[in-house]
């Protein structure tokens, strides 16, 4: 389990405007459990990446603690570090062969699996690579994600993982995630591409200004609300609505006898950011 305990975090004070509020988190708490794939959504600049860095122990909170299975992440214990892997949005890979890279980095992860690694690479249709520094962003992401999954790290954090992937690769990404998700794992996927992850996530986190606006499982959302199109004279029980090609898309409270509808993440996100949910 990851426990974020009342943390505060500030960016460095603004050089020319020192009175400007630079705090990103204040007294912020969050619990992340095993056997869940979290989708982390939020507007640009609310601190999604910063939160992932804090969870991974790359940023140090000014107050409070982040606990990974009861160990403080910023103590950077080797055991803790082997349990967590972050795939950042942008990264560089060194100028070396894939083989050499794996040989160099796998000792940090005692549960590294060659089988998972070659299967992921195979699923992503990637062969041997002689120079990791010379490949495209998309291929780099696929290699790095394959490595991340192969480490068997219990906590896998991914920042905008589908950015830079072509249409076919996005589908492969979902397959690879579904294939490698296990009961004792936690995945946190931050994204703006809600449709890329809509059916793969279990739990929605919507981050707003200094607080979590929504922290709810897809199952609970589907049990509480229906997402559908309605005619303009049928707006009873509607909580949020917006125009779409098919008419008016609405979120309404679900009555017990109604069958559940699929959760429309984009609509949910807009409703939450407009303060309707």
């Amino acid at each position, binding site marked *: 389990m990851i426990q974020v305990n009342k943390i505060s975090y500030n960016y460095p004070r603004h050089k020319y405007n020192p009175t400007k509020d630079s705090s990103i988190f204040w007294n912020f708490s969050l619990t992340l459990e095993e056997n869940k794939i979290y989708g982390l959504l939020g507007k640009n600049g609310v601190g999604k990446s910063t939160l992932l860095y804090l969870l991974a122990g790359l940023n140090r909170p000014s107050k409070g603690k982040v606990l990974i299975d009861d160990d403080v992440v910023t103590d950077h214990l080797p055991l803790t570090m082997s349990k967590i892997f972050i795939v950042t949005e942008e990264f560089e890979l060194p100028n070396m062969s894939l083989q050499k890279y794996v040989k160099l980095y796998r000792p940090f992860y005692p549960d590294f699996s060659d089988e998972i690694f070659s299967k992921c690479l195979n699923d992503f249709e990637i062969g041997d690579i002689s120079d990791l520094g010379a490949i495209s962003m998309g291929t780099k992401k696929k290699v790095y994600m394959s490595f991340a999954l192969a480490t068997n790290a219990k906590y896998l954090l991914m920042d905008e993982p589908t950015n830079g992937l072509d249409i076919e690769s996005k*589908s492969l990404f979902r397959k690879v995630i579904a*294939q490698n998700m296990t009961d004792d794992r936690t995945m946190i996927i931050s994204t703006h591409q809600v449709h890329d992850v809509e*059916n793969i*996530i279990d739990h929605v986190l919507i981050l707003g200004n200094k607080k979590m606006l929504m922290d709810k499982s897809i199952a609970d959302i589907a049990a509480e609300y229906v997402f559908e*199109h*309605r005619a303009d004279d049928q707006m009873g029980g509607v909580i949020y609505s917006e125009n779409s090609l098919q008419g008016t898309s609405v979120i309404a409270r679900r009555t017990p006898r109604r*069958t559940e509808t*699929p959760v429309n993440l984009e609509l949910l996100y807009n409703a939450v950011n407009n303060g309707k949910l």
Partner: protein
Amino acid sequence: MNFNNSDKAIFLQIADRLCDEIIAGKYKDDDRIPSVREYAVLLEVNTNTVVKSYDFLSREDIIYNKRGLGYFVTNGAKQHIIKIRRDEFMKQTLPEVFRQMRMLGIGIEEVINKFNG
């Protein structure tokens, strides 16, 4: 009016898909169906969603679980699904067709002629 074509929850769509496959004879009585993970990978959905579908179909007595071996098609599942679907057709689909027929002024003879081709 709630649009009748509004989508069902993903877990129900997955259950429908499996039922279609059983009706089509892809999986026969006591055949093993794909594991939760295999189906999740195929459909690119969360494994817990497929678990929910399989639980639902187990409760409906369409599939059954053998511990450690996986899920299998219940004896007579095909007939059972057809019966459920016939009930659904009579109670939901047909009244909607009748409603539209009345609204558009389409008589039953016109439909019979169309049906007989």
